[in-house]
């Protein structure tokens, strides 16, 4: 019997050999981040003249606006912490020290753009215009999300890690396919980069060239676990090349550099060139939340140098040196921040009526018969409780 010619082999020999290149595309190297974080203003407030990235210094107006938002953000952080101590909020994850990142993320977004924040990005949300009292309603225990995401183009703050990054990519995709001029900024921390959804979000965004910017606030800690336990990568920004998108490292306490790097990424997204990954190097000055004890995992000596790199002190020194900020302006700004804090105390401090029947109203567009039964049961319980008072 003649051995049969293996069919697969015969077909393979007919196939036109295509140039399957295994050569590394050198253009990919351009996607890699710079060796040191991009900086436009140093820790003492002096402009950095020889920056490798060649990015222009933002305008005085932009820098002043950023400074103003950071001062308000710092006051928001501190007041929120105080409200926890007074028992008005269950908990508060402070972004004290990270205000530059959050303010810059909001500032590069225009009237049609969206922000996807995490629980630690309340200052970014406030900078998007969300009412400081509304955003705290989650932590006050009133409801899960206290503001209308469409009104502020700000997604509800995400508590699960990295899940919101995929939503951001999807919303950016929707804008792209409907021809809407829209850029999306999605925020996460260094710990979230270990989650599968971080990978999936970046991969989807790059494959579909979505107009989205992913900014990691690398604050060195995921509750107690240091960055060295999250990754062995040379930098978090270096992960960008793995998805085919540029990765940028930036000084996360330098609001000027952040505005420049984020602005460049937003322009790129608007031009249809796809997503950018930004790693902002910063530091979580306070514990994870008020319920956490940071002395169990880091020393005061470690925290101290970061105080000298404070983004607000740096911005103030820089703006004073530029001659666009004086004592009177600093005082006026402080006054405005105090007014906001007073409104927060008033808003969160007052008793708000909560309607138990509302528990059943937003599960489906129309409550199911079963939910109506359960609603009636609860209302009956409450009525009987009321009657025995």
């Amino acid at each position, binding site marked *: 019997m003649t051995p049969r010619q293996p069919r697969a082999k015969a077909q393979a020999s007919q196939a036109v050999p295509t140039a399957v290149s295994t050569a590394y595309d050198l253009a990919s190297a351009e996607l890699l981040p710079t060796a040191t974080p991009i900086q436009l203003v140093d820790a003492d407030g002096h402009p950095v003249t020889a920056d490798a990235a060649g990015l222009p210094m933002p305008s005085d107006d932009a820098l002043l606006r950023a400074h103003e938002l950071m001062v308000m953000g710092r006051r928001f952080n501190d007041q929120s912490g105080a409200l926890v101590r007074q028992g008005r909020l269950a908990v508060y994850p402070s972004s004290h020290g990270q205000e530059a990142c959050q303010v810059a993320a909001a500032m590069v977004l225009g009237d049609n753009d969206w922000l996807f924040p995490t629980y630690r990005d309340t200052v970014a949300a406030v900078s998007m215009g969300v009412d400081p009292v509304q955003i705290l309603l989650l932590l006050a225990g009133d*409801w*899960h*999300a206290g503001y*209308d*995401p*469409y009104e502020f183009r700000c*997604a*509800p703050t995400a508590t*699960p890690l990295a*899940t919101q*990054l*995929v*939503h*951001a*990519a*999807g*919303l*950016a*995709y*929707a*804008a792209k*396919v*409907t021809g809407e001029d829209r850029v999306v900024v999605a925020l996460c921390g260094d710990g979230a980069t270990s989650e*599968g*959804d971080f*990978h*999936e*979000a970046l*991969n*989807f965004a790059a*494959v579909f060239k979505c107009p989205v910017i992913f900014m990691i606030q690398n604050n060195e800690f995921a509750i107690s676990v240091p960055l060295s336990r999250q990754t062995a990568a040379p930098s978090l920004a270096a992960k960008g090349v793995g998805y085919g998108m540029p990765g940028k490292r930036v000084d996360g306490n330098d609001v000027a550099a952040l505005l420049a790097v984020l602005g460049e990424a937003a322009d790129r997204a608007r031009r249809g060139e796809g997503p950018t990954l930004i790693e902002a190097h910063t530091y979580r000055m306070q514990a994870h939340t008020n319920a956490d004890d940071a002395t169990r995992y880091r020393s005061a000596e470690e925290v101290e140098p970061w105080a000298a790199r404070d983004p607000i002190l740096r911005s103030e020194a820089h703006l004073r040196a530029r001659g666009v900020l004086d004592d009177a302006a600093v005082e006026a700004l402080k006054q405005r921040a105090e007014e906001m804090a007073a409104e927060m105390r008033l808003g969160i401090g007052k008793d708000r009526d909560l309607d138990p029947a*509302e528990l059943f*109203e*937003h*599960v*489906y*567009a129309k409550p*199911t*018969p*079963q939910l109506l039964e359960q609603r009636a049961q609860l209302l009956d319980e409450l009525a009987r409780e009321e009657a025995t008072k």
Partner: protein
Amino acid sequence: MTPMPSAGTPSPRVEKITVMQALNRAMRDAMTVDETVHVLGEDVGTLGGVFRVTDGLTKEFGERCFDTPLAESGIMGFAIGMAMGGLRPIVEMQFDAFAYPAFEQIASHVAKVRNRTKGQVNLPMVIRIPYGGGIGGVEHHCDSSESYYTHTPGLTVLAPSNPADAYHLLRAAIASPDPVIVMEPKRLYWSKAEVDLSRPRPPIGKAAIVRDGTDATIVTYGQSVPVALEAAEVAKREGRDLQVVDLRSLVPFDDATVMSAVASTGRVVVVAEAQGFSSFSSEVAARIGERCFHSLAAPVRRVTGFDIPYPPPKLEKHHLPTVDRILDAVDSLQWEDQ
């Protein structure tokens, strides 16, 4: 639910089609009338899906039916963002057990976004999941995963058992302002029936009595419906008249139809492929026990899969509810008390 769009009295469009073709038609018709409807998933584009349910959609609608990277959580999260951004995505999960990586996105976001935002953000999206066994599939391809979803408030969960319901329930799911999971009976993908595409079916939330009977009621759904109907045929020859209720919509659950059916016979067997312990069939049995106790002549029986991981193909016949097992359960309903 919004009734299907119609202009005056629709002329009947009766066609003999399979469940798979009905689902395909539902997506095609929805995509034709609403350009915000997009389909995404693994292999749904050029290939038309591993079961061919999305066959031809990419050819007709281009990138509105598109292949994604192979990542179920990513697909689900991406669809959430698309829905927030004004689109109506239809997600295909390739197989029941392959949807598990997406579970966090489903349970923590798809199901909760409306609630978290007090109704300010709706997610009009559909998640299609081919489910169930009896096809000789290897592990991870035959799970009945509906109970994970029915246990999660905020999700609407549908389980069509025939081409007409497959078409109309999927159209209703696409039109729904809420996220809807459609459990597709993969063993019945190729089963054919005449369907009047123009004639609206009972809406989401309504069960159907698919066979009248006076002696006992079988409550079932999805791909167990034909097994129950066959059992009823055999029982008829044996002198028992069984009623069969096809739930169609697991959430919302049609208590009214189920309870009045059970009350009319006083005997009931709940049938589903899924493992019985802590399952949707347990919920059905419990509801009947709570609401129909005084109409019952016998305890509610369940015929379900055993409480084992889905078996290998050569052994699955022992796991799945069969006509004999259903009839044994019917036999045990204390007839001697009559």
